[in-house]
């Protein structure tokens, strides 16, 4: 039997909306599990990453751990895809780039309304934040971008099925207009 392509996914600095949109393919998820084997992904709760054919990344790069995960995905996945506005451009989290990191952390942990035990957390368990939030292509090479916030379930489905079948990827207009 031919081995099915292995697919991994990760959410870096995103809201999980892109993963939710993937789940929005509804019953087609059953077809998908016939087509592919899931490796590390929040859907399977597998925490370690093996060699994969395809990696889907949601979210931008905002902290040291994001960098580590992203690099590992790049190492292990033949094809790596930036899924959604956050991965592609930095998206909503990158709005903090307008402000200094100190300003953000002070607002959240020291001066904001309702803060108890004010102080910026410094436990080594907690990954340090980068000065700015970056799109993932600024850290590793990526092969495809799938824009949208989030890309619609249909767009994700079209993308996955055409990619897996080795066809050139083309979307019907209804899947890529945003108004």
């Amino acid at each position, binding site marked *: 039997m031919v081995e099915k392509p292995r697919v991994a996914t990760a959410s870096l600095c995103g809201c999980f909306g892109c993963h939710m949109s993937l789940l929005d393919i509804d019953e087609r998820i059953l077809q998908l599990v016939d087509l592919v084997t899931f490796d590390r992904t929040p859907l399977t709760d597998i925490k*370690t*990453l093996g*060699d994969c054919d395809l990696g889907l990344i949601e979210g931008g790069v905002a902290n*040291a751990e994001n*960098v*580590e995960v992203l*690099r*590992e995905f790049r*190492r*292990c996945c033949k094809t790596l895809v930036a899924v959604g506005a956050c991965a592609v451009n930095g998206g909503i989290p990158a709005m903090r780039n307008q402000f*200094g*990191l*100190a300003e953000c*952390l002070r607002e959240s942990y020291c001066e904001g309304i309702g803060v108890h035990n004010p102080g*910026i*957390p*410094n436990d*080594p368990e907690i*990954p*340090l*934040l*980068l*000065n*700015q939030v*970056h799109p993932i292509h*600024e*850290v*590793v*090479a990526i092969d495809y971008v799938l824009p949208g916030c989030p890309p619609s379930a249909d767009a994700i489905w079209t993308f996955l099925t055409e990619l897996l079948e080795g066809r050139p990827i083309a979307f019907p207009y209804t899947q890529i207009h945003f108004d």
Partner: protein
Amino acid sequence: MNASTAVTVEGFVAESLVTHGRDPRHLLQHLIRVQQRFSCVPDAAVEALSAALDVTRTQVRAAIAFYAFLHERPRGAFEIRFSDNITDRMLGSRRLIRLLIERLELSGLPAWGRDLIRDDGRVSVGLASCTGMCDQGPALLVNGQAVTNLDAQRVDRIADLVQEGIPLERWPGEFFRVENNIRRHGLLLSNPANDGAALHRLIDEGADDALAEVERSGLRGRGGAGFTTAIKWRFCREAPGIDRYVVCNADEGEPGTFKDRVLLTDYADLVIEGMTVCAGVIGARRGFLYLRGEYRYLLPHLESVLQRRRAEGLLGTMILGRDGFDFDIEIHLGAGAYICGEESALIESLEGKRGVTRKRPPFPVTSGFDDQPTVVNNVETFLAAARVVQWGGYWLRGEGTDQSAGSKILSVSGDCAWPGIYEYPFGTPVHQVLSDCGAENTQAVQISGAAGATLSPADFDRIIAFEDLPTAGSFMIFDDSRDLLDMVRNFAAFFAHESCGFCTPCRVGGALLRNLVEKVAAGQGSEYDLSEMRHIGAVMRQASYCGLGHTAPNHVLNTLDKFPQIYRRRLEREAHTPSFDLDSALSEARALTGRDDIGAHIRAQIPEGSEVSA
């Protein structure tokens, strides 16, 4: 300076309106005068002009924001801008900028769009795109006046003059001397004499005959695109319209080009004669000479030539006594925008607006100034046209090649013994220019400016002609002591700065290219970045809206092909490198948390293949 400062902004604007009129299309010209007088365009001037000319405040502010030489907030009383072309840099301008900054007790370095302004408001130091003094650089502009041949001594003296607050009129005259440096005279340059002969012929033989001579000559535009001049004139003549206009493009913004400056200095009569002949052919009554702001020092000279020609009956009403042959020329100044050399942007600018390119078609010949049929030609084209009408079309055909009749005037600069103006018959090979100007060990020639082509020695047998190497005249030489990546960095910054911002491929692509070039220059680039540069360059060529964006990636793509080593020797080993330094991106968080453990750092990527995957 102090006595005249008493003039109020409102008073000054009122006076400008009286002398120069209330046509909304004069907005830019009023703004330039205000800027000149107050080192900025104060709010009061915005209000006054918007009311008097009936244009909205936003339009006024948009124009101020668009033009590099207009500012909402004051620069220094002495506003100094160093010409920042690669040729200025090769002549040591960076060192001189640092020297001046130190002498004036400023800190930092000026960058595109970031001027250093001294707290006391006495002086500011910034950069300008090529000011067209490449054969006598490094150069700068002080309050818009060109200063040439800078060296440490001159810069030292400028610092003193600024410190002492000596007004420009009392600065040493030799600072402002601009040489012509004509090194080789050809068809056009060998005879500056002009006695209205072309106009006499036009009147004697008629407009049809004049146009036929231009047609016969095969004259093609000298401003870059090489469109056949007779066809342009004929289209304009035949296009329906209420009025017609003749526009002389003296924007000369292409880095490394300075021949129009020389033509306007010593051959202005012939250029104006060419415009007048064109007016006679197409039936225009008004013309404009759009003079780049950097050449403002030529304004009095040009005005006096116009005035004299009016007195001689060669311009104005009833030219040479011919009833109904009325034509006059206004000079409009630019204000530091390369894109305003593009003909449709130039027309927008003539109409007082931001210099944003128009949609074409319709082309200016059918819908140009004031939406009327308009001929836009380069300075050199008008000069050649005057001679063609005077001496006949075959005269021009006497030299050149099949598709390129006549001669081309080159502006030669960079690594050579005798930079300056050279006129050659079309068909002249590059190596001949190099040997005539005393260039040795030449590594590369950038022909036709930053937007042109990069030539390697393998190209030096190629010929200057529309069939092979078309050129608007810029010819910049780089010997083998130069790092060509310095050229690429300079041009990439130039295009990112000069993009008008209207379309995404050019606005964003230009900035991306600049960033990638800088990344490679900093030794942080990878193969992947080079392929990105090619990819972005191809999109810019294909998808940009106007010529600026189409040509902006040329230097990158040409050097990637012909001089790959200037990039390769700086590449990191990896196939892909991040676009920022990862570990320093944690610096703020480390400082805020006081952490310095292993998790508080990001190690450099280990090259692929040398690590066992997890």
